[in-house]
């Protein structure tokens, strides 16, 4: 493990422990009240959801071009994190929407494209798990298609109607609401980096164990 891992993990743990206090200190939004505070976890996890999907797509392209398995391990780790952060986003979103929009789910551009990308990352993991040998190549192809697909889903649903708040409100937030938000963004980014590193390391060790087994087999003969 690199030297920076443990201190950063500690910082990340402390930030998450402190985050309820920071969020509690933030001002109430005038119309939504307490429910609006879900947003401090919803938006950072949605960003990490997007970032991990992009990491997965980019690593898959690099894997297909170079054939280097390091990129493949990063893509797999990122796909798992896409599912994780996607789950947080898709659970916290409807909880907030029930109060703000009066309904748990709306077929709007962002919600639909998030749901479908989440399903594609599940499909990626299912393919990796049950595809048998050689599935890493196929999964890389799937990841590239999935990344390209998000734009199409977004445009097609956007043509109907969109009520999801745009991210342009973020720079205009007052300090008392902006600080907890950026605090949570930092905490989630740290969590993402740490989990990605950890997961890639598990895959590296797995690959090494497999290699050792194979060489042992050769030795036995």
């Amino acid at each position, binding site marked *: 493990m690199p030297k920076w891992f443990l201190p950063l993990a500690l910082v990340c743990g402390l930030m998450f422990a402190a985050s309820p206090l920071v969020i509690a200190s933030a001002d109430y939004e005038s119309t939504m009240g307490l429910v609006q505070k879900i947003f401090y976890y919803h938006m950072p996890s949605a960003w990490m959801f997007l970032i991990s999907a992009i990491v997965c797509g980019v690593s898959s392209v690099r894997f*297909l*071009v170079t054939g280097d398995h390091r990129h493949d391990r990063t893509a797999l780790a990122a796909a798992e994190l896409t599912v994780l952060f996607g789950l947080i986003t898709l659970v916290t979103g409807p909880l907030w929407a029930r109060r703000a929009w009066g309904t748990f789910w709306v077929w709007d551009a962002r919600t*639909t494209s998030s749901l*479908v990308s989440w*399903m*594609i990352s599940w*499909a990626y993991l*299912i*393919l990796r798990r*049950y*595809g*048998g040998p*050689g*599935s890493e*190549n*196929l999964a*890389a*192809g*799937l990841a*590239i*298609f*999935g990344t*390209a*697909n998000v734009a*199409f*889903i977004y*445009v*097609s*649903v956007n*043509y109907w109607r969109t009520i999801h708040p745009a991210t342009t409100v973020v720079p205009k937030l007052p300090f008392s609401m902006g600080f907890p938000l950026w605090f949570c963004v930092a905490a989630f980014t740290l969590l993402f980096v740490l989990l990605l590193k950890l997961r890639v390391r598990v895959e590296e060790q797995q690959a090494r164990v497999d290699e050792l087994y194979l060489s042992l087999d050769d030795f036995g003969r």
Partner: protein
Amino acid sequence: MMRVAWLIVRKDLTVEVRSREIAYTTLFFAVSCVLVFAFALVRDGRAPEDGAAGILWIAVMLAGNLTLGRTFERERQSETLRALLLGPAPRAAVYVGKLLGILALLIGAEVALVPLVALLFQARLLAHPLWLSAILVSGTVGFAAVGTLFAAMLVRARSRDVLLPVLLYPMTVPVIIAGVRGTAALMQPDLEVGVVQFWLALLLCFDAVFVTLALWTFEAVMTD
């Protein structure tokens, strides 16, 4: 390259014309799907509004999954896909050939499906035949472009029968949205050309992007 692609289409269609296996099973399956929807949704002789557009596309996608699976299963059983890939033909030509063969089968099924859906759901599907065929063909190209690549990739994968729809349906969500919305717009009493044009343009963009991506990915993925 087009000559090789054409040879592959001709080979596939010759095999198909001799056995007619995929054409019959796909068509029968698609018709049963439409009937199931008719039993489930038509009440007192009236179908839900816009339902026909959705049912047409669902039937096409379900039948498409069957066609894709079966086309490549045939190649796998006799190890002929390996022979195709070993031959001195560009990979892209193999992909294009397979895609065209599958398109021919699917469009054939659609020709039978459209009047059937129009009849059972009393829908004005045939009011604008040219627009409808443009939407249907461009949507089918998008669906088949992704499907051909995935079905080819999965030929040697374990549990490929289950994996194909699992991968294919989430990926073709834009096709179903644009196809259904475009078809539904065609069934309105007064046609809004702008709406139909938007969905058609989206489908054409989808086709262009995904055929290009598939040509590149096919080369990279079908290595061994």
